[in-house]
Structures are given as structure tokens and as C-alpha cells.
């Protein structure tokens, strides 16, 4: 499903690699936490999976496709199979909740008929039925993140990447978001979530991949945030 083979990423104008010879494999349907302190390379890891950037060395394989050799025009097709969510939600401020979700389908040419059907479905799934006509500014942070998750999931991606999705949220709200991600994971979607929130990691007891200065220092199933914490 997802495989990194000796992946090194060196940003131009930086001497220390953001990822340093990282190899790992993530199977279909897994739920994986990507942990590590700020600057340890979590976001870089996720960006490489999206082919937002290319590794300096090594291979990245997603959904059976080797990204290094993938041509530019094939990238949109890859991204249609990957949903992503960020700490800052990235909603369009001048569009309603429903329009924000529909936007993701419109720009990949889904028929209007399909959009009319699936947008309310996914809004109900994330618990936002009845708030479809609100603007993002009229929602709480947790609700905004739910919209972002709905947008990422509405096209039923094989993989959901979440980069610190609870970074801006209080613990209770975060818990709701985690329940939602778990529910998405139960539909068979692989979820990779970068975080440094140890409460969440410790309570979920899922696979943990730890990065430290770009190097993979731990890969543990049913792990906790800090060893011996």
C-alpha cells in the first residue's frame, strides 16, 4: 500500500536531511501515528507520499505506484486516491460547508448528480448535518476540521493523510476528531496521522512510527508516545 525504501530528503540550502534513510511499509487498512518533535520530518514524510515533493534518494511507493518514475500528468490521478487534512483546516472562507466539500468533487469533474447525493451523506457522517449552509467563520475549530475531513473523505480515498489535525484543538474536541478518523479507518481506509499529542497516541494504542531528526528510530505496533512514559 505505502512503502518507503531508503528515502532521504535533503532540502536545498540545508545541510541536515529532513528525512534520513527511512524505510518502512504500511499495509492497507492500517492506522499509523507518525510521531516526533517539531522539525523531525513528519510533514516531509507526508509530502513525499503526495508527491508534493520528490525524495533526494530512495523510492516511495503508494497504491502500487512508484512515485519517482511517475510523470507529472499522472500526479492528479494519484492524489484522487489520497485525502489530506491539515492543522490549519484550509477551507475556502467564501464558500459554505457544503460548497467546500462539493468543490473537491467539482474540480475533478464528478457529475452534479453524484455531488448532490454524496455531499449530504458525508456531512452527516462527520456530524455536520444541518450546518451545510454555514460559512467556515460560523463554525468552531472542531467543526471546521470536520468539514476538512469530509472534503478529504468525500471521494472515498484509499489513504487519508492527516498532518497534526488536532494541533489547533482542545483535548475534548480532539477526541471527537480521533473518533471520526477511527471510523474512517474502519471503512478500510488507511490512515497516517502525524502528531506530537501523546495523550492521543497513548489512548489509541495503534502502530507508532517515530522520527528523530529525520531518522526512523522506532516502529512499534500498539505503541505509546514515549517509551516508558
Amino acid at each position: 500500500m505505502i512503502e518507503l525504501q531508503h528515502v532521504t530528503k535533503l532540502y536545498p540550502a540545508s545541510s541536515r536531511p529532513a528525512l534520513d534513510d527511512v524505510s518502512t511499509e504500511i499495509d492497507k487498512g492500517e492506522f499509523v501515528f507518525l510521531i516526533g518533535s517539531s522539525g523531525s520530518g513528519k510533514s516531509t514524510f507526508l509530502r513525499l507520499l503526495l508527491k508534493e515533493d520528490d525524495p533526494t534518494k530512495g523510492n516511495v511507493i503508494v497504491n502500487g505506484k512508484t512515485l519517482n518514475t511517475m510523470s507529472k500528468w499522472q500526479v492528479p490521478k494519484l492524489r484522487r486516491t489520497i485525502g489530506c487534512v491539515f492543522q490549519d483546516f484550509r477551507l475556502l472562507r467564501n464558500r459554505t460547508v457544503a460548497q467546500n466539500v462539493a468543490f473537491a468533487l467539482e474540480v475533478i469533474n464528478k457529475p452534479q448528480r453524484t455531488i448532490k447525493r454524496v455531499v449530504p451523506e458525508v456531512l452527516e457522517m462527520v456530524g455536520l448535518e444541518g450546518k451545510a449552509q454555514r460559512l467556515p467563520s460560523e463554525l468552531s475549530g472542531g467543526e471546521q476540521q470536520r468539514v476538512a475531513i469530509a472534503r478529504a473523505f468525500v471521494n472515498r480515498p484509499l489513504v487519508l493523510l492527516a498532518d497534526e489535525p488536532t494541533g489547533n484543538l482542545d483535548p475534548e474536541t480532539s477526541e471527537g476528531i480521533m473518533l471520526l478518523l477511527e471510523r474512517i479507518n474502519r471503512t478500510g481506509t488507511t490512515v497516517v496521522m502525524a502528531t506530537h499529542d501523546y495523550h492521543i497516541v497513548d489512548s489509541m494504542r495503534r502502530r507508532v512510527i517515530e522520527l528523530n531528526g529525520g531518522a526512523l528510530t522506532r516502529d512499534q505496533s500498539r505503541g505509546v508516545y514515549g517509551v516508558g512514559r
Partner: protein
Amino acid sequence: MRVNFVLSEVATGLRRNLTMTVAMILTTAISLGLMGTGLLIAGMISDMKEIYYDKVQVSIFLADDVTDEQRSAIEQQLAGSPEVANHIYESKDEAYARFQQQFSQQPELVQNTPADALPESFRVELVNPERYEVIAAEFPNGQNGVDQVRDEGDFLDRLFSLLNGARNATIAVAVVQALAALLLISNTIQLAAFNRRNETNIMRLVGASRWYTQLPFILEAALAGLIGALLAIGGLVVTKVLFVDKTLAGPIRAGIIPPVDWGAIAFISPVIAAAGVGLAGVAAYVTLRLYVRI
């Protein structure tokens, strides 16, 4: 492709950068208008060459005291010369009539010119226009009733080099303006892409095709190019009606300057429109490729 989506994005884009859009349209219009003017002058030059070079290459002006024998001797010599393709005789009266018509806009000039001031002449068309010297040698100035032999071709050459210069200058300014227009288009598109970076970032992440993401920007530029082209064509029409047809009416009727007819404008209009749309669209595409991550 969702037409509504693309069109509403284009409209929003143009409205959001109104000042840049106006600047972009105006520079494009000026550039295209000058380009059209250059093309019209080029057409005019070739029309004029037809009018002039075909008719007259050498004028033989006769002396005031020329006798009938001298005149018919000249005529016979012209008729018998293998160098001469054609010749016509213009009497003093005909010369004056033509003068009156040429300068109908300047009545004082016509009034102050006595009816017999203009000399009679033979207008000669040569088999080979370059062979002026031969004819000039056959009719020495001031002898046998000949006052002066003049190479009209020489004058025309200078006239046409002047007109060609005017055409080249117009086109050169058009090119400089086009460069300015291209830079403005590139700038506007970069600004538009920056304004819409949230949308395009999301489009990129959810897997919208490059084409889908870029099309609104390219159409935005192409539409501005089209509006610029329409303004330029309008400018040419106004110039024809208000300047060429009014101010130059006299010389045009006299046959000195060929008219700018609607056919010529109709012919270059699609060229201008295509140039406007094409250049703007290509400029936008290249800008997106080079400067904007989409």
C-alpha cells in the same frame, strides 16, 4: 469540464484585479491598434506602388514655346522607341484640371495659380523602369521643345522609402508595446494566481488536473486579449472614419493616396483578434508554467 465553474472563476478573477485588467487591456489594445495601422500602411504602400509605378516613370515636360512640329516629333520618337511601353500626352488644360482636383482642399493655392502655369508633358512608361538614363539622353533638356525630363521613379523611390520607414516605425512601436503588454499580462496572471492560491492549492491536493486548474487563468488573459483586440479594431474604424475619410478626402479623390477601404479593415480584424487572444493566452500559459506552482 464544468463551464459554469470556469466562467465564474474567470469573471471573479477579472473583477478582483480591475486596475491590472484595465491596464492589461489598454496596452494590448494600443499594441494591436499600432500593429493594425502598420498592416494598413503596408497595404496602402503596395496599392500606391500599383497606382504610381504602373502609370508614370518618366515625365517629359515641354517648353512654353514648343512648336507643333517639335511636339509631334517627340511623340513619333516615343512611339518608335523600343524602350517605351506606353506614353500619354497631357495638355496644359488637362494638367491644370488635375492640379485643381488634387488641391481642391486648398482653394487659395488654386486661385493663385494661373491656368497656364503648368507645363504640357508626355508621361512615359518604360519597358524597364531602370532605363531612365537612356530616355533622358534621347531628349536633352532645353532642346527641341523639351524643357526638362524627370525621373518620377526616383521621386517615388524616395516617397516609398519614407512610407516604408513610417510603416517600420509603427510596427517597431507596436512590438515594444506588445512586449509591455506581455509583461503586464504575466504580472496580472501571477497576481491572479496569488489571489486564488487557496483554491488552487486545494485543487492540487484533491487531484484536479493541471489543465482544469490553469484554464481559468488562461481564459482570463485570452478574454482580456480579445477585449483589447476589439478596442484596437474600434480604434482603426474610428481612425478611418474621422481621419482618413475626412482629412485625406481630397488626395484620395485625386488618386494620390489610395483609400483605406472596409475590406482591408475586415481583412486585418481577424488577424488582430487572433494575435490578441493568442499572445495573451500563450503569455498566461508560459507564466503559469514558469512562475506558478499549480
